[in-house]
């Protein structure tokens, strides 16, 4: 195959795929006024997203906080400066690690399940059945999932942050000899001393997780709705959903941090 033609086709397909996701998100937002009619599905999806992802999110967050404290603490100890460990762990968890961990876990658990569910519905004509009943699949299926993840991702992120900071405190005390009082005073002060309702680190982290939740749900719904060709197609939809979600989490995470800390 001509490499130029291959590259052009690849870029064309990716652009069309991105366009589909953006269009889907736009149609979802247009359908927002219909959300009260989907309250039951919204609650079901929120419960699924929260309960399915909660245990693994908390375990990963605890270890991530511990690793963060360990790696940072090793260097800080060389300079005799371990008293700022609580501050660094708390800020890093809230600003970056909490939203990132939660986003990746939601992509792997809930995003994959959304893509599989909608993909199976697509290949077994259930989506077409909704269409011929004049029921918009975006309103019926996509809207409650997007809103559920937009709500649950920040909620899980807050819990991740808390558990991650706690994981760090265990390492700080047990391995680095930092007293719990010193660690927690540093952590709490760093998150409350800005004079604002929420410090920048917290609201930027929560904004990230809100955007991650919307991105994961949109990308996963799009992958499911575009599935075709039976079980193989559903498998590919799941793969696409998780890959694109993780990619977006990393890129959007970078862009949001850059915007708030270097541009704004």
């Amino acid at each position, binding site marked *: 195959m001509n490499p130029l033609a291959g590259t052009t086709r690849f870029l064309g397909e990716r652009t069309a795929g991105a366009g589909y996701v953006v269009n889907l998100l736009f149609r979802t937002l247009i359908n927002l006024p219909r959300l009260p009619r989907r309250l039951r599905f919204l609650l079901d999806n929120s419960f699924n997203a929260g309960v399915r992802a909660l245990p693994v999110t908390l375990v990963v967050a605890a270890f991530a906080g511990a690793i963060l404290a360990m790696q940072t603490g090793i260097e800080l100890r060389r300079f005799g400066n371990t008293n700022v460990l609580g501050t660094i762990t708390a800020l890093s968890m809230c600003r970056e690690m909490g939203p990132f961990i939660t986003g990746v876990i939601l992509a792997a658990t809930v995003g994959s399940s959304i893509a599989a569910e909608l993909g*199976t*519905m697509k290949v*077994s*004509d*259930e989506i*077409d*059945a*909704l*269409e*011929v*009943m*004049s*029921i918009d699949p975006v309103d019926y299926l996509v809207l409650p999932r997007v809103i559920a993840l937009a709500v649950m991702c920040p909620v899980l992120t807050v819990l991740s942050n808390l558990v991650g900071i706690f994981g760090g405190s265990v390492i700080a005390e047990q391995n680095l000899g930092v007293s719990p009082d010193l660690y927690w005073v540093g952590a709490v002060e760093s998150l409350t001393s800005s004079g604002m309702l929420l410090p920048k680190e917290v609201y930027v982290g929560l904004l990230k997780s809100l955007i991650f939740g919307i991105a994961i749900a949109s990308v996963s719904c799009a992958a499911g709705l575009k599935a075709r060709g039976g079980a193989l197609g559903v498998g590919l939809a799941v793969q696409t959903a998780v890959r694109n979600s993780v990619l977006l989490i990393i890129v959007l995470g970078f862009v949001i941090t850059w915007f708030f800390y270097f541009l704004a």
Partner: protein
Amino acid sequence: MIELKNVSKRLGGRDILKDLTLTIPKGVNFVLMGPSGTGKSVTLKHVIGIFKPDSGTVHVDGQDVPSMDRKQLMALRKRMGYLFQNGALINWLTVADNVALPLKEHSRLARSEVDDRVHEVLKLVGMDHAGKQGPPDISGGMKLRAGLARALVTNPEYVLYDEPNAGLDPIISHQIHELIAEVRDRLSVTGLIVTHSRACATQCGDRIGILEDGKLGIEGSVDEIIASDNPLARAFMGSGSD
């Protein structure tokens, strides 16, 4: 009346429909037959606006389907029912909730009225005992009957049947065929039935069209097609077929 004129459609690099012209008068069951891959299901999807033709026109009661916007298409679809090959029931809803879905979404009926109507159509298709069961718990024939109940619950003028007996044993198939004929007779519904089955065509069809290479190879009443010497008609409607 459903009218397709010179409809062509290319899918997956293959010409599926080539200048297909087809007219389905009101009040009849029109059976569309033909070898696999000749565009029978694709024809149905053009009628209900899931596909748009590459060229040609599709009219339902004089309205041009491909040029309809989403709102018009939704209005048209409210007048139509569609029975998918496997029923296409929403997996997480019970049979009764599946049947009630179009009413809950589009009508302002009270809950008790919805329940009554659901019970009525489930009874019509012999499924009133299974309303609380989920799609994974019922057989293929029951799924089809539930799908038919869902297609009928809004009192449609047209019902499109996509292989209503695919994968069913002869006894259940016979019941489904009788049901389709009953729907036409009792509810005056116009039917477009896609099938490979001679039994289906003879038991519930009024007219038969057989597709060949993306267009209508032969068309006529059931008796005309059975009596025809046309090789295509012989292949599908001859004594050894089915």
